[in-house]
């Protein structure tokens, strides 16, 4: 009798939204701590042309505040946290993400800048309504 071939399940370690939960996390139904390495320092060799332009425009020497921006995930989808809107902003499905966390972080930074500077940002409406001076 031919033996059934055992199909090895692909390891999902490190993939977005696939982190193994601890017993404590299962019990409380919440994630404890951050869902990615918040201390990961950026690799400047992977800067995108847009980010280079942004740094130059602002007159800074490096990524400045964007050093703390990383690609995380929300509801099993890649997302970046917008501190101004205090919420996760989901990456559109059509954007294909690289395997490397450093490259993913650069994309997250670029998209976040575009989002925050956009006239469609949710704070623009708030500002129009409540701006005092």
């Amino acid at each position, binding site marked *: 009798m031919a033996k059934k071939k055992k199909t090895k399940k692909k390891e999902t370690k490190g993939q977005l939204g696939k982190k193994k939960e601890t017993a404590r996390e*299962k019990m409380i139904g919440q994630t404890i701590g951050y869902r990615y390495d918040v201390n990961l320092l950026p690799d400047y060799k992977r800067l995108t042309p847009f980010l280079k332009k*942004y740094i130059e425009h602002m007159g800074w020497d490096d990524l400045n*505040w964007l050093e703390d921006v990383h690609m995380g995930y929300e509801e099993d989808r890649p997302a970046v946290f917008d501190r101004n809107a205090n919420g*996760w*902003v989901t990456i559109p499905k059509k954007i294909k993400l690289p395997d490397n966390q450093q490259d993913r972080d650069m994309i997250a930074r670029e998209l976040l800048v575009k989002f925050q500077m956009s006239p469609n940002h949710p704070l*623009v409406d708030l500002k129009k309504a409540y701006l005092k001076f």
Partner: protein
Amino acid sequence: MANIKTLEKKTKAQSMGLHTEVLTGKTQQKFFNPDEAENFFYWGTHDVDFNKRTELDVKDMDCKEANKKIDILMSEGYGTIVIKNPQGKHSLGVGILNKLNLIFEGSLGYFGVGSIDGPIVRVNGRVGWSCAENMMAGKVVIEKNAGSCFGAAIRGGDLICKGSVGARTGIDQKGGSIIVGGDAGAFTGFMMQRGRIVILGDVGINLGDSMYDGTIYVGGKIGSFGSDAVEAPMTKNDIEWLTRKLKVAEIGNNFNISKMTKIVSGKKLWNYDALEPTEKKGAI
């Protein structure tokens, strides 16, 4: 009875009704239009030119008048503003959400350049308590010493003091980099949650007390470690980052970075949310 059967299948958390209380619901999926136009400043702020320079004497102004005047100058396109006679006034240069070169020729009082998002600031003197509190982005360079709570609750950007700083530097820090050329007082990095603190000199007692995350690098002696602050090995990435950042900070030439001590959170206090769901449920 059917209900009991259903309950048996649930986890303890689910049976307590907690499972629906996961920290979600903040997703904003309608955004991130990849075709968004290239734009480097916030809506409602000004596109200024660094080469357009002016001076502002604030000797006879209060902080409100001075800050308003800075805003008016930015709206006129001035990208470099030199403030004369700040005379230790409090709350100068706060809430600037623009790219800007701002130079203070003198010292600042309390809460100088707080809540800024973008400008490059240079203070050719000293600063009082809580300098650059809640700073979001940009670069601030203090040429002399700074008071307590330097960079309190900072969220991003580079905050540099070439001299020494007081106690509770980087208290409640949530991001960004604080770089100090001299010494720092007690409780440096108290309750910090993210970001990096670099002290080239000595640091006082209770360093990194109750820190949740983030990294502290110390070049000199450490008074004592705070609760849950632990030493960690320096990596190649740390050394590269420090080398680059000290150049940005214009300090620490020829400083032996590899001999610095790296301090991180021991993560033993990471049980903050153990009671949260129950408390939430009680409140509802």
